[in-house]
């Protein structure tokens, strides 16, 4: 917590803080002024921080009666024009499933931070995990697309939360930042810089009398959003609807709406997807990891390379929509094997396996553990895989 004068200096100074606090401060920095949440380990510090910080900047913090109310209130707040968010962990995210779908179909910009812990059910609340990455993609029913970012450090918690709001506003859709119990609660030096663009949602592009809430004027398939409290009249519904917002129960209506909503995110893939490459120039075997579990990979790769193994690595900074361009690139480079390393019993690997036709083998380091893989463990697995 800091005063105004400290705030300015923060931009150039490194401070020591946790991933959860960094997510919260990133949200404030990009303009989030509404937080609705419900306590859940290991995400609660985001709510703690917001309850102190938001009133200082004329924002609104409410601890709701459950996760259902929290995320629904976020959709409501978003429809007044506010940048709004919630934060939770696996069990809470499960409860938010239906409303993720509502946010998607109502095209409400919103950000959800999920701090992954051990599951299923109550699991291991105070531990870390990557076993919710498929939950972030497929938690709601129906055909839809999600944007999910995966920070691996406290600095990325700050940066990716800012990016999450920008993507949510640009594409008018819910965006999830998937951290974990370790990234969320560990302390690292972080720079609360202001070196970023702020994207605000597109407003109505026509006068009130001509406005239709889901009329598409631009090529990006994103309609201009009117808000409650303006001169614009609109009705929006979780039912399949036409451009006027009226329920449309025809098959044609469903096709038109669902394809547009999904395509708007799919088309954004080149901009949304982000990853880091390491030694891809000569790699025959590549390790794919993300989030906290990617932290041990570079050291393991260096050790293997010192022994003469042609190994490289990629780290996914965004998980969904799945970076198909990266898979195509790995195919073009002609790698022989892609090893997926994740702290779960096999989730992202299933998506990677879809790309076997590109010519590489896929294998996995898949352990449903709560501690990230050590460089030694990864190194041994690389050697084992390469000697096969």
């Amino acid at each position, binding site marked *: 917590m800091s005063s105004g004068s400290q705030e300015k200096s923060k931009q150039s100074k490194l401070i020591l803080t946790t991933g959860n606090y960094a997510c919260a401060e990133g949200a404030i920095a990009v303009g989030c002024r*509404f937080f609705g949440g419900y306590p859940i380990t290991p995400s609660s510090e985001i709510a703690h921080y917001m309850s102190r910080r938001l009133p200082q900047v004329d924002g609104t913090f409410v601890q709701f009666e459950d996760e259902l109310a929290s995320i*629904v209130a976020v959709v409501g707040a978003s429809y007044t024009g506010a940048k709004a968010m919630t934060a939770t962990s696996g069990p809470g995210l499960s409860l938010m499933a239906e409303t993720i779908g*509502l946010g998607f179909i109502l095209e409400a910009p919103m950000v959800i931070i999920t701090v992954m812990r051990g599951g299923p059910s109550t699991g291991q609340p105070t531990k870390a995990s990557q076993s919710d990455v498929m939950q972030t993609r497929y938690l709601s029913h129906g055909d839809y697309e999600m944007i999910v970012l995966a920070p691996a450090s406290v600095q990325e918690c700050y940066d990716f939360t800012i990016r999450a709001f920008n993507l949510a506003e640009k594409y008018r859709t819910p965006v999830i930042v998937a951290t974990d119990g370790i990234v969320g609660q560990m302390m690292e030096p972080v720079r609360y810089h202001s070196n970023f663009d702020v994207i605000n949602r597109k407003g109505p592009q026509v006068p009130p009398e001509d406005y239709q809430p889901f009329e598409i004027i631009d090529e990006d398939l994103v309609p201009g959003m009117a808000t409650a409290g303006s001169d614009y009249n609109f009705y929006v519904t979780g039912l399949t609807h036409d451009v006027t917002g009226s329920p449309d129960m025809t098959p044609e209506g469903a096709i038109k709406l669902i394809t547009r909503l999904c395509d708007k995110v799919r088309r954004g893939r080149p901009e949304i997807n982000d990853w880091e490459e390491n030694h891809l120039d000569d790699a025959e075997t590549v390790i794919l990891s993300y989030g906290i579990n990617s932290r041990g990979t570079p050291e393991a790769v260096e050790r293997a390379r010192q022994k003469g193994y042609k190994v490289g690595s990629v780290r996914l900074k965004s998980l969904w929509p799945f970076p198909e361009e990266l898979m195509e690139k790995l195919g073009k480079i002609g790698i022989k094997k892609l090893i997926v390393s994740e702290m779960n019993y096999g989730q992202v690997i299933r998506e990677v396996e879809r790309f076997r036709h590109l010519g590489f083998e896929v294998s996995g380091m898949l352990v449903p553990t709560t501690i990230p893989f050590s460089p030694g463990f990864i190194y041994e697995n690389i050697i084992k895989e390469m000697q096969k």
Partner: protein
Amino acid sequence: MTVSNDVSLPDDYPEDHPLHGRLNLNRFIFCAGCLIGTAITAITSCLVERGLTPKDYAIVSGIGCTGRSSGCFKAPAFHATHGRAIPFASGLKLANPDLEVFVLSGDGDLFAIGGNHFIHACRRNIEINVLCNNNGIYGMTGGQCAPTTSIGDFTSTSPYGNIEPPFNLVSLAAAAGASYVARWPGYDVLRLKGSIMAAMDNPGFSFIEVLAPCFTQYGRKNNLGDAVKMLEWLRKQVVIEKNCPPHDAEYSHKNGRIVCGEFVNSPREGFTQKIKQLRETAQKKR
């Protein structure tokens, strides 16, 4: 009957009227004789009489027959998910406290799946106006038992008679802390309007129960007759009382006595006002 966007009902409302251009059969889907329409009319005429235009208010509904009511308004109107009208409305009100926010939804939506949100909104005294069209049954979904169905009554899921006691919504709202609570039969539009005006004047959470019998489901399954017969059935039971404490507001079809009136009108500071004060405290402490 084929429902189509093209079939328009006569519409001679002025352009800034909340129902202007909205009365087509795709939006107004209710059974002929249902009182949902009178509740909608009561709200809209109050908005018009207050001189409010769409930038001043928002309407939220959940899922079910009354859930479809938001679609009748030319206004920022939101058809939320099942049970979640109150938190949606709370988000709107919290992020823009200038809005006059109405929730119009059914008893199943607000008191079964959404019951937790209702009691907490009462406790917070958030400045929204909640109207519950109570028909004692799930209408649109196919006539299933609701938390408002009377003991012994027949529904699609209580074929041998309902064995669960119903909520008394007035007593529940008052106990949870609502600062305005009233109950009216849906046909008593003048008294209902008076209550909606009072709800708008109340700087806190207001709850109005609107009795709106469902002849299509409830009436048919319990041999209570058509729309007009069911209104007669209701009218015989309604007793209007002044100054009746909320916990004495009997709601019993079995005893043939449903006490209507205004039961709580004790304004206290609303939640968004408290948040304003909290910000001042937070900013002084910096």
